[in-house]
């Protein structure tokens, strides 16, 4: 007897149809899985057998061959437990009919329960593209696919439920479609800007960075509030639209990081520790999976203690910072993951952390300070538009009762500036100032005559290097956008120069 069940596999975010064929025939009882199965797929036979047995169904004691077609794509993970079990049951006539236009996913527990699996959202999106009109998924995965249209989704709790559903005895109710706007999302992580006392300079810099999508480097002594500022950044970035949210959720779904809220409605904030390996940061591993930079897609990647990161790990950021995607290739797999993030990096000014501090003494020699800064390569620094210094917060500032602006107010201004940019760059591959190429800078960053004079003077008087030129213009463009000015004026450039501390000579 023969049965066919449909499912999907992923390579990166791209899906492939997988047909699970099951054949049962006479002979000595045996079980064979073919079609390039990974370890978890091979092990599925044990789970399938127990699950069938414990669901009061009959496990066929015959010769069984399971084939996962096409046979040239590697299949990983436990998602095929449910389709394999259904194939077996169908081939042994215990399930009357398996619909052709339905895809099945699910890991089985030994008692017959259907367990949560990773990557349901991207797989269902791909299933819709392939023309499937219904899907059976683990009930625990239901939250993440609530917004999907054009497909009927049946959440399954146990194997028996699915069998009864297919045999028509008890129907599983499809999940109710919710519109994106109707989903309540509780946001746990962010720090509100009003909670950060003092640091008005840094806050202003963060606002500009958010408005123009600029990467930013924070330099300051320990305890100046670098991490806090970084954590508050997602809160002032523009709200996500449905497509963005879906993309973020897809990546988090693949790596199994979704909580019970399902779809992610806020910008992610990722802060990997500085001991992180290159693969964990950029993506990869033996079983290719998205790295921190992809998990930070459309959100913020915060690298604290930047000079402590491994050099290769940092260099791996260069291409994604430029392209917004990372392509990971391994021996048995390759994948392209989106990685369009805002980089916020933080570092101490010197090994002891107190260089420039008014309160504590720095014990580092100029050589040490130079060496410390030298750990960040020029090309990486070139991709960071803004670098600012923070000074430590005084007691008066911390205890101050003055209520600072909250994130919501700042976000409104940021949204306004972003809208201006989107209007200007319509039809181009850029949508923020930070993404402008050098030819686009020339076209869109028009400076008035007084600004022209100023930037000329700045180069000779302040020892600003030539490669800073474009960066300063981009930041000045953002400041001008926030001022609603068509042309960049002298004061915009003057301000932008304040956010380029590493151009200064006292850093050696």
């Amino acid at each position: 007897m023969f049965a066919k069940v449909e499912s999907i596999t992923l390579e990166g975010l791209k899906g492939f149809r997988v047909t699970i064929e099951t054949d049962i025939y006479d002979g000595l009882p045996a079980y064979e899985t073919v079609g390039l199965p990974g370890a978890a797929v091979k092990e599925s036979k044990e789970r399938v057998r127990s699950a069938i047995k414990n669901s009061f169904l009959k496990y066929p004691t015959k010769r069984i061959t399971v084939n996962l077609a096409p046979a040239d794509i590697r299949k990983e993970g436990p998602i095929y437990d449910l389709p394999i079990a259904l194939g077996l049951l169908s081939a042994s006539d215990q399930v009357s009919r398996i619909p052709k236009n339905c895809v099945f996913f699910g890991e089985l527990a030994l008692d017959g329960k259907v367990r949560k699996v990773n990557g349901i959202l991207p797989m269902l999106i791909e299933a819709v593209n392939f023309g499937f009109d219904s899907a059976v998924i683990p009930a625990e995965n239901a939250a993440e696919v609530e917004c999907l249209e054009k497909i009927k989704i049946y959440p399954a709790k146990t194997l028996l439920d699915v069998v009864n559903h297919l045999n028509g005895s008890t129907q599983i109710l499809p999940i109710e479609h919710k519109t994106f706007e109707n989903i309540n999302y509780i946001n746990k992580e962010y720090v509100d800007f009003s909670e950060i006392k003092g640091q008005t300079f840094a806050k202003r810099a963060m606002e500009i960075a958010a408005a123009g999508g600029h990467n930013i480097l924070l330099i300051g002594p320990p305890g100046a509030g670098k991490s806090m500022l970084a954590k508050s950044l997602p809160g002032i970035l523009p709200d996500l639209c449905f497509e963005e949210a879906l993309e973020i959720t897809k990546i988090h779904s693949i790596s199994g990081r979704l909580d019970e809220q399902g779809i992610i409605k806020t910008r992610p904030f990722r802060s990997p520790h500085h001991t992180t390996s290159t693969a964990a940061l950029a993506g990869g591993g033996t079983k290719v999976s998205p790295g921190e930079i992809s998990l930070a897609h459309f959100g913020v990647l915060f690298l604290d203690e930047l000079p402590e990161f491994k050099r290769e790990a940092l260099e791996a950021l260069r291409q994604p910072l430029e392209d917004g995607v990372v392509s990971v290739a391994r021996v048995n797999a390759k994948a392209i993951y989106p990685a369009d993030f805002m980089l916020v990096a933080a570092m101490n000014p010197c090994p002891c952390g107190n260089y420039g501090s008014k309160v504590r003494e720095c014990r580092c020699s100029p050589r040490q300070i130079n060496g410390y800064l030298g750990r960040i390569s020029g090309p990486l620094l070139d991709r960071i538009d803004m670098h600012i210094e923070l000074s430590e917060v005084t007691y008066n500032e911390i205890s101050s009762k003055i209520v600072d602006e909250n994130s919501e107010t700042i976000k409104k201004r940021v949204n306004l500036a972003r809208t201006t940019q989107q209007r200007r760059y319509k039809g181009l591959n850029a949508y923020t100032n930070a993404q402008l190429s050098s030819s686009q800078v020339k076209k869109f960053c028009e400076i008035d005559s007084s600004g022209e004079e100023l930037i000329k003077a700045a180069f000779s008087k302040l020892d600003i290097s030539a490669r800073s030129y474009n960066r300063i213009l981009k930041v000045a463009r953002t400041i001008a956008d926030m001022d609603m000015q068509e042309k960049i004026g002298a004061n915009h450039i003057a301000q932008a120069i304040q956010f380029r501390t590493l151009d200064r000579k006292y850093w050696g």
Partner: protein
Amino acid sequence: MDINEHTRYWIWLSSLEKIGPKTFYDIIAKFEDAKNVWEAVKLSSKAFSFLDEKKVDCMYKFHSEAYIDELLKKCDKNKIRPITRLDNEYPSLLAEINSPPPVIYVKGKIENLTHKSIAIVGTRRCSRKAFDYTCEIAEELCTSDVCIVSGMARGIDTASHTGALKAGGRTFAVLGCGADVIYPKENDKLYYDIQEDGAIISEYVPETPPLTMNFPMRNRIICGLAKATVIVESKFKGGANITMKYATDQGRDIMAVPGAPYDKNSELPNFIIKNGGVLVESAKDILDEYGWGNHKKRDKKEKKINFQLDFFEQRIYNLLLQGDFSIEEIEIKTEIDVSALYSSLTMMEMKGIIKRLPGNVFGIS
């Protein structure tokens, strides 16, 4: 290098690690001459019963002509001249102190050192103002033909050498390591510039690394080479304090630049003034003390008239006249709107009125 026998053994004895200046003079007092010591070592160790064992061992261990040859070769190679206490070139002010170094190793022109010399010392972690001020004083002293002695350390020491060199004056650096070792490393330009008209001086043999224990000892040479020691900024404890104590022992004058009582770095200078040290406000105070007179006031470049300030800039300027402030402090104190403030700061910086310092701090340049 032609060196007579007498000098040769004198250098040998002084170079031994375990034998400090005091022991050196004790031994010389007994044997009258270094040559006799050398011979005595050859004969028996009984003659040194008044010394402890380690010292005697040390004398035996390095009792070889080859050792002396090598030492002298090292000097030659690095263009270092060993000058003994017996040489005419030995600085006479230094010769007056208690147990002066038996030998000093000199790189440069020690003959340019006169009695008209002032030592300037202070903390390695000085304020920017103290640095500039020290520079200025040293510069003015040099224009009046005064030699500046210091220790080439970071901070005040660097400032005094720098100031002296700016005036094209003679300045002398006493190191706590071999005269061929540049320490701290970042002062290498200074190290060579000093040798042009002044000298690098050390009582340690060439190639001695900068050991912590050497530094207090070299301080006695710094004040020993000078008529008076000026202390600019220092906490109560520290190298400057040691220098002050040596200077007192040597009967040399001590002067200090007063500081604000709430500043830790004023502790030592203010202590000195309280106890009768000479208060130094300008180079004139020092020059007048010794009648070194004909003080020519340097015509300070008047920079104030060169620029015009707008309303905001004037407010920032007035604030910064009180001291250095961080950008946040400036914002709060001047109550200027951020965008206007940041651009004003850049403008003023470009006009050269203010200076941006590490830690997002601004000060008048």
